[in-house]
């Protein structure tokens, strides 16, 4: 590798960001926070792909990032629509309120 940044360091940063997003997803009960943490995790996965693309100097990793980007866009659109429905029904954003199903 010609570059000066070792691949491990980039992957460590990606792993730390992913772990922070996962911890936030598990700890926070507000639905908007959970969506934000999913965004953080998707972004960390994209960072790992870009680090790999920079390591092998090929465009394939960047294309994987574009897939992740469009997935995140679709996911956040549907997720925020669900948040609006959730709020209009339960008048709160606490995810634990919605743990029972009415069939």
């Amino acid at each position: 590798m010609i570059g000066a940044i070792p691949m491990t360091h980039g992957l460590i940063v990606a792993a730390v960001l992913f772990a922070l997003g996962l911890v936030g997803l598990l700890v926070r009960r507000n639905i908007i926070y959970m969506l934000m943490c999913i965004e953080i995790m998707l972004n960390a996965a994209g960072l790992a792909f870009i680090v790999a693309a920079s390591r092998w100097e090929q465009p394939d990793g960047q294309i994987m990032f574009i897939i992740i980007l469009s997935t995140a866009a679709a996911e956040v659109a549907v997720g925020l629509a669900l948040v609006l429905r959730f709020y209009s029904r339960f008048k709160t954003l606490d995810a634990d309120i919605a743990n029972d199903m009415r069939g």
Partner: protein
Amino acid sequence: MIAVFYIASVVAIVSTLMVITRMQPVHSLLYLIVSLLAVSLMFFVLGAPFIAALEVIVYAGAIMVLFVFVIMMLNLGREAAEQERRWIDISMWKGPVILALVLLALMIHVLHGGNPGAASGRVVSPKEMSIALFGPYLMVVELASILLLAGLVGAYHLARRDTDNKEQKRS
């Protein structure tokens, strides 16, 4: 150029840590935008300038605007103005502004420093990426368009107002 990568990653990790510890959603949105900008700077240093631009435009632009829009929609009412006055307090935007100024200094340094991909091996140009995207990866474009269409239809269906009223009448 190598130091830029490490400083940007420290900024990203610190602001992400602030995201998951704030209590107000708007505060953590500010920190989340700073985190995305820091990751974008890391992409730039890693030799992916087009992806860095996409990160700023799509993530920090479109997706964060959606979040702000929904948060503002959920806070309708009399107390919203008072709450907004509390949000726009100097003690809360001090942190994101400092982190963003660090990123600005890094960006000016990178732009003055000559070739963008000096910290990685080689800059993969947008042309090269587009040739790969519309050549062997053409199916990915089709799949992404189908996914975005499904997301559009799903979001429209879920956020429609009259289904909401019908369900409330039924229950």
